[in-house]
């Protein structure tokens, strides 16, 4: 009787693994990445799709195999002899192990390396829009070079939270027409984007989920990110490196607009504000 | 028969203590390797300038070398049952070791007299850090040597094989720390 109950229970446990294996794949297949909006992102998505499919299959097969072994094993009486010889063991483990690893790894390397190289080795096209981002607790300072195409000098000792968040050197003429915004980046479609990232306090990480762009900004370093947006729209920016209390709401907007709208926006930004009394 | 069993247990014990020591030395090596790699990485920065190291360092190095030599001589004498000389060697190593630590503190005071403190420059930070870490380990080793001296000068005859066992371990640790010091010195002066 005890043996009966334990067989039933073992069968239920086996069923659990099978259900989790299949259910997991079903759930996973209904989850989507944020809508793709960049060129190099297609390579990353291809990698992720490859992995989702191969690991999904391996996962389901593995869990079902486990379920099967438990199901049949619970019904098997004592085994009388050693099943597999040492040689068989080596062959089985070796073959399956290496096959699985190669499919997974081989695919990863084959698909992944070119994407990585392309992303990092790419030289920025001449017409790329260059934007500087200075991250701080807890917002993104954004700067454009303005009509003269030159960024003005900055230094950290000039930084003042109220009057000069970017630490602009006011004596530098190149900086007079720089456009400065907060938590908002606007770029035209059809051109590459080149972001120069800096941080003035903690490590932040610039994340554009739809563009498959993520770069840690370590203070003291100036990493650059180059990518090519493929559709217009307004996309959110987030911080993905713990930087303090309001890390969870360092929200900004990355707007990809038509070239005309971009020119208009630039002009609006450059027009000096009405004179203060 | 039982003496044989005892001897077998003792030699196994000796083996495991020796293994313990070598693994511990591996751990300490990794610690200084971590400090050293931090040093080397930092030294490639554009603002890296080496401070003038205090004169006391040279003297301290000689003292530490002398201490190792003295310990070696003492151990050698002990193996040949020349106990008085052996104890002199052990005592000498201890005294010189303490002299080294005192000398290191003197070196620190010399630097501070020149206005160079822990946070003064990257090189000075590493100087205090590396010499401090090394000094702490020397302090620990001195405690071990001191304990060995107490055991050796305690009541009862010192058996040769106990002596050589204790000395083997102490010597290994002591010379190891001399080696670490030479590497630290090399880093501080050359990179």
């Amino acid at each position, binding site marked *: 009787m005890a043996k009966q109950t334990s067989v039933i229970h073992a069968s239920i446990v086996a069923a659990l693994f099978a259900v989790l294996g299949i259910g997991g794949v079903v759930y996973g297949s209904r989850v989507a990445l944020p809508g793709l909006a960049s060129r190099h992102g297609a390579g990353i998505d291809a990698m992720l799709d490859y992995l989702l499919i191969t690991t999904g299959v391996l996962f389901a097969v593995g869990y079902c195999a486990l379920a099967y072994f438990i199901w049949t094993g619970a019904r098997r009486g004592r085994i009388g002899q050693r099943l597999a010889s040492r040689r068989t063991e080596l062959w089985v483990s070796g073959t399956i192990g290496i096959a699985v690893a190669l499919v997974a790894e081989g695919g990863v390397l084959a698909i992944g390396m070119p994407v990585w190289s392309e992303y990092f080795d790419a030289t920025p096209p001449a017409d790329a829009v260059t934007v500087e981002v200075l991250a701080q607790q807890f917002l993104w300072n954004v700067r454009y070079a303005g009509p003269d195409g030159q960024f003005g000098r900055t230094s950290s000792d000039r930084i003042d939270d109220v009057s000069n968040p970017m630490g602009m050197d006011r004596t530098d003429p190149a900086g007079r027409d720089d456009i400065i915004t907060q938590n908002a980046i606007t770029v035209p479609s059809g051109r590459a984007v080149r972001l120069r990232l800096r941080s003035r306090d903690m*490590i932040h990480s610039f994340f554009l989920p739809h563009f498959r762009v993520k770069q840690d900004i370590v203070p003291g370093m100036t990493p650059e990110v180059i990518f090519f947006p493929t559709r217009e729209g307004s996309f959110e920016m987030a911080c993905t490196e713990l930087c303090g209390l309001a890390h969870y709401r360092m929200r900004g907007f990355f707007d990809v607009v038509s070239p005309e709208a971009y020119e208009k926006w630039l002009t609006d930004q450059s027009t000096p504000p009405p004179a203060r009394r | 028969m039982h003496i044989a069993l005892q001897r077998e247990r003792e030699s196994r014990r000796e083996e495991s203590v020796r293994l313990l020591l070598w693994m511990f030395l591996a751990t300490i090596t990794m610690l200084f390797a971590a400090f050293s790699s931090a040093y080397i990485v930092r030294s490639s920065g554009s603002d890296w300038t080496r401070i003038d190291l205090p004169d006391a360092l040279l003297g301290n190095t000689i003292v530490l070398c002398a201490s190792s030599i003295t310990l070696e001589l003492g151990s050698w004498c002990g193996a040949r049952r020349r106990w008085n000389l052996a104890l002199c060697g052990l005592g000498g190593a201890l005294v010189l070791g303490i002299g080294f630590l005192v000398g290191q503190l003197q070196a620190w005071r010399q630097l501070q007299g020149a206005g160079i403190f822990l946070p003064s420059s990257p090189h000075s930070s590493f100087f205090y850090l590396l010499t401090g870490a090394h000094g702490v380990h020397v302090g620990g080793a001195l405690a071990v040597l001191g304990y060995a001296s107490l055991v050796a000068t305690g009541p009862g005859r010192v058996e040769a094989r106990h002596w050589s066992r204790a000395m083997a371990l102490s010597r290994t640790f002591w010379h190891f720390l001399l080696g670490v010091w030479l590497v630290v010195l090399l880093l501080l002066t050359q990179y």
Partner: protein
Amino acid sequence: MAQTTEQTTDMRHGSDAEHAHEPGFIRKYVFSFDHKVIGIQYIITGLLMALVGATLAMLIRLQLGWPDRVWPLLSQIFPKGYVSGVMTPEFYLAVVTMHGTIMVFFFMSYVLVSGFGNYLVPLQIGARDMAFPFLNMLSFWVGSISALLMISSFFVEGGAAAAGWTAYPPLSAVASAVPGSRNGQTVWLVSMAFFIASFTLSGLNIVATVFSERARGMSMWRMPLTVWSYFIASILGLLAFPALTAAAVMLILDRHTGTSFFIPIGLVVAGQHLSHTGGSPLLWQHLFWFLGHPEVYVLILPALGIACDVIPAFTRKPVFGYKLSVWCLIAVGALSMVVWGHHMFVSGMSPFTGEYFSVATLTITLPMTVFGVNMLASLWGGSIRLRVPMMFACAVLALFGSGGLGGLYLGNATADMQLTDTYFVVGHFHMMIGGVTLMATFGGLYYWYPKMFGRMMNEKLGTAHFWLTFTPFFVIFFMQHFLGIQGAPRRYYAFTAYDFLRETRLQNTIISSAAMVLISGQLLFLINFIWSLFKGRKAADNPWEATTLEWTTSSPPPHDNFGPHPLTVHRWAYEYGVPSDVGDYADQRVPKERVAVTA
């Protein structure tokens, strides 16, 4: 005559108390030198710390599952952490940091590595105790100081450390960056220093013991996989922890003496211009992960080893591919020391370095996969007795498989770019060092409880505990992988600020609900553990009909483990499926003449 010699030699080994007179309570149970007592001390301490860690987990999930809800009761219990029933971001970050730190170091490392390691290694190699019983006791008490310090950090000014268990500077280095970086971070660093000292003592002891205390006939290739895993894990820990020691010393100096090892020039924090010179935050990351990556293998190797010992007892056949599995463990251990950069792909490291770390990390997949295949194949064709330890061992295998597959995404730089610092990572590491280890911990506890305490745990409660543990655990952390795919970042106090995360709301509520089931299910274990100590069915020497040496002595074993006569080992640790006078197995002492040796 023999007795006197035994006494003399025993005195040399520091266990004179037993033969001379009965030791007092303090010497027997508090400052004991006996590896079994120390092992149990570690386990109990670890379980107590797990209660703290689990409470912190509950607070995290309450916040993330129901971010709009108000908790007046929690305001009463944690007045500084919950203001008017709402969790403060300060408290959230401290809770997240301490949850990670406590679970990794003070639960998993204590129970799995130090607890089971100290208890099992001497028994399984046929030794009377560890090589250095005094060091063993010292390691436990130094470790206890470490645990007390860590708990105390909640009560210092500014609260506990809040820069994540990874403590990246400048966040962890500058006091004004986050409240936990005032004093909590310093207490954290000092506590970790004590922890590392304790772990070093423990690790040294295990390595020395495996080398020199093995019984006659117990060659390295006859040791159970459990002992191999502790041996390799200890060596790993000894070589890897010093990097964190070095980093911790430098961080303390940066925090309190004005040095700039990690703090770069020109920082402006809370309106203040800092006067540091050119340090590098990346240096901390390299040093931390040089420890951090091997550390996860220090945790998972013993978990896998334990599962590999439990499984054969319940399939009645040897573990599949024993020698190959040992080589896999050695390969994984060695490789784990050269792949730490995969935690830093987007950190600003050179992309060439990133390529190297991708390839290196993917090579670890090979021995891990082979090991996993061996574990799965160990069930193939077996006669399975699905008792509670076996249920958890199957859970180990299942989570190792799914967690390991997730590692493929993170180990290559390309996919990692999108997934790093998202919930994909959280799901992955929880499955591996939260799941594989947790299931192995429970499996081991149910399996070795009879040996430790002389009583059996209740099977029905254990079964219910398994269901309430494995199922919600899988749901929670499997789903978190997909939260990461949807872009949900880590260490977020709430996901409510972003439109692109709106769809994750329901999933977070499901996860939190499952978490409440998981945490409350542990009550069954606690009740079972305590109740069985007094009322559990008395255990035989070998209730599971297992072959390893600990089952050849009484439950619990005598002080010197195997009695005064030295034992001799004649076969490997997995002689199952052979006819013998006791059944279908032969323990390691049985000579060749009585039962044929199959390996």
